[in-house]
């Protein structure tokens, strides 16, 4: 029997998914604690044993009969992929660089603009970034700023890889600067070649290649490659890839159309949207840098455990109480958040604990969706009111997919996800109006992102089969 083994070296758990090639069924899933400090393979082997036991005992299949034709992985272990991005104008190349890095699955620690000063370059030097992304200027546009910044990077002899994705007319000069300083660099296409035109794909792909060839080794995960074919991408990039292929379809399979993914974790909440996001109403003019079709945002202050206190701060007590239906202020919201922040491995047991978690998740979803989706700004003109659209119009998104523990384990995930729906009271936010909801109950999204690289038709079919509709 031929099967794929898909692995996610997560920050907490190493998750394994085995897919039967012939039946396109999920044969088994298993997980164990990620052990990146000692040897990432310890946790992997434990999970692998669990997978073996399950397949032999539950499926009554001899493990030795299974031929894994491909063993591929994604990873967010050892802090994930940390990046710093540099551009010229904050709303233009600096923002384009940040968006491209997020789409590549990175955690963008900070974005810099204009010519860097000494303290900024020191900050970059002393950071624990994995990759530095250098952009600035449209093709044929400003060269001075990016060359200045390249010189500073060369001066500090930065040791991490530098990805150059700026004004192509400055490349020759920058390459010379980097060569002379022995900087480890890679050149790709400009992330914003023309004003307001984002070109994020070459940057995303270049980041993935650097991740695969250099970062995996730098993070001490290279020995995993003795057993598996490769750690191909950061986990969030795999989720985005899965969502992308599910939205667009593959060669032989129809896609679902525009969709979003809400991924609520302990430390962060990720939102992905797969849609052009053009205005759906008349009299609306898109403003500023265009948005990538596949867009990911990460909310570092919205999470269920590690970020429980920052979630409270962002939402405010009132909002959480509203989700708790606590009109008489009987619940000590602060204490509950504090408890979660201090016990990041806490698994809710009682109905009250579950209810509180779900209220937090609702508030977090509402805020994360508002931050991700576009919004309208009214302008009064002699021809009447017109609107600027900032970001993406996601009113007509057809599907919203929920993943992450609190959603997957919830008996009523729809309640949580509906917090991110269009709200007539705040019509400026272009949130999905009446989407269908799906839940990633078998945790297959990142695995399917990996599989999509091998066999996109199969990945689409399996997602359609396993993502569960919620009523």
């Amino acid at each position, binding site marked *: 029997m031929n099967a794929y083994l898909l692995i996610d070296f997560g920050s907490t758990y190493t998750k394994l998914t085995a897919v039967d090639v012939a039946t396109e069924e999920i044969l088994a899933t298993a997980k164990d604690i990620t052990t990146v400090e000692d040897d990432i393979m310890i946790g992997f082997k434990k999970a692998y044993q669990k997978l073996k036991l399950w397949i032999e005992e539950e499926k009554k299949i001899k493990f030795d009969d299974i031929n894994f034709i491909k063993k591929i992985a994604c990873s967010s272990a050892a802090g994930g992929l940390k990046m710093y991005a540099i551009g*010229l*104008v904050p*709303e*233009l*190349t600096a923002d384009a660089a940040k968006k491209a890095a997020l789409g590549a699955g990175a955690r963008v620690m900070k974005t810099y603009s204009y010519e860097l000063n000494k303290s900024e370059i020191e900050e970059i030097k002393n950071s624990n970034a994995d990759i530095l992304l250098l952009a*600035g*200027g*449209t093709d*044929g*546009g*400003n*060269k*001075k700023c990016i060359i200045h910044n390249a010189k500073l990077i060369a001066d500090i002899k930065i040791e991490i890889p530098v990805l150059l994705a700026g004004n192509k007319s400055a490349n020759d000069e920058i390459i010379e600067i980097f060569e002379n300083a022995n900087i480890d660099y890679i050149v790709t296409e400009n992330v*914003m070649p023309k*004003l307001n035109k984002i070109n994020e794909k070459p940057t995303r792909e270049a980041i993935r290649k650097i991740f695969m060839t250099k970062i995996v080794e730098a993070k001490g995960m290279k020995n995993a490659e003795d057993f598996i074919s490769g750690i191909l991408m950061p986990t969030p990039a795999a989720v985005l890839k899965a969502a992308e292929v599910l939205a667009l379809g593959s060669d032989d399979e129809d896609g679902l159309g525009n969709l979003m993914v809400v991924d609520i974790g302990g430390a962060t909440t990720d939102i992905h949207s797969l849609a052009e996001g053009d205005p759906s109403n008349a009299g609306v*003019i898109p*403003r*500023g840098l265009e948005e990538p079709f596949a867009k990911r945002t990460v909310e570092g202050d919205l999470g269920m455990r590690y970020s429980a206190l920052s979630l409270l701060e962002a939402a405010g007590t009132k909002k959480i109480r509203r989700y708790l239906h606590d009109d008489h202020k009987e619940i000590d919201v602060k204490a509950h958040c504090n408890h979660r922040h201090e016990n990041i491995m806490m698994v809710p047991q009682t109905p009250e604990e579950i209810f509180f978690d779900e209220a937090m998740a609702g508030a977090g979803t509402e805020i994360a969706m508002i931050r991700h989706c576009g919004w309208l700004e009214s*302008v*009064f*003109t*002699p*021809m009447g009111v*017109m609107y*600027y659209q900032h970001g993406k119009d996601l009113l007509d998104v057809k599907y919203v997919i929920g993943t992450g523990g609190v959603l997957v384990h919830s008996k009523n995930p729809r309640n949580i996800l509906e917090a991110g729906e269009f709200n007539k009271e705040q019509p400026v936010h272009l949130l999905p109006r009446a989407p269908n909801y799906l839940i990633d109950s078998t945790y297959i999204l990142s695995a399917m992102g990996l599989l999509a690289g091998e066999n996109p038709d199969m990945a689409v079919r399996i997602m359609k089969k396993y993502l569960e509709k919620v009523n």
Partner: protein
Amino acid sequence: MKNGKTIVIGVIGSDCHAVGNKIIDHVLTQQGFNVINVGVISPQEDFINAAVETDADAIIISSLYGHGELDCQGFKAKCDEAGLQDVKLYVGGNIVVGKQEWNSVEARFKDMGFDRVYKPGTPIEVTAEDMKKDLGMIK
């Protein structure tokens, strides 16, 4: 043939007159300029950000609806702030309310820091010729 000069154009403020802006784009492109069009209803910041990223040589602001004088206030100062001291600034259209004496209008806009100010109905070809002189392309 490209002439190597980059020009940012657009319609400032809450003004959505799109046709003239398209004509300006068309004519200047035909004459070899690299035209960066920020479009209609554009705030000052959009012109400035575009000029910074594209390393523009000149900015041409259009205004047709009479409120250009308000919309253009502080523009030169913001350009200076953004490091665009050497970028030539042009403005034209129906840039003030009603019919006013041209010399006074021109003087007010020059005081605001514009290098050249154009009367209503001036063909864009005139501006193109002026730019070629100002940018040292012809004598």
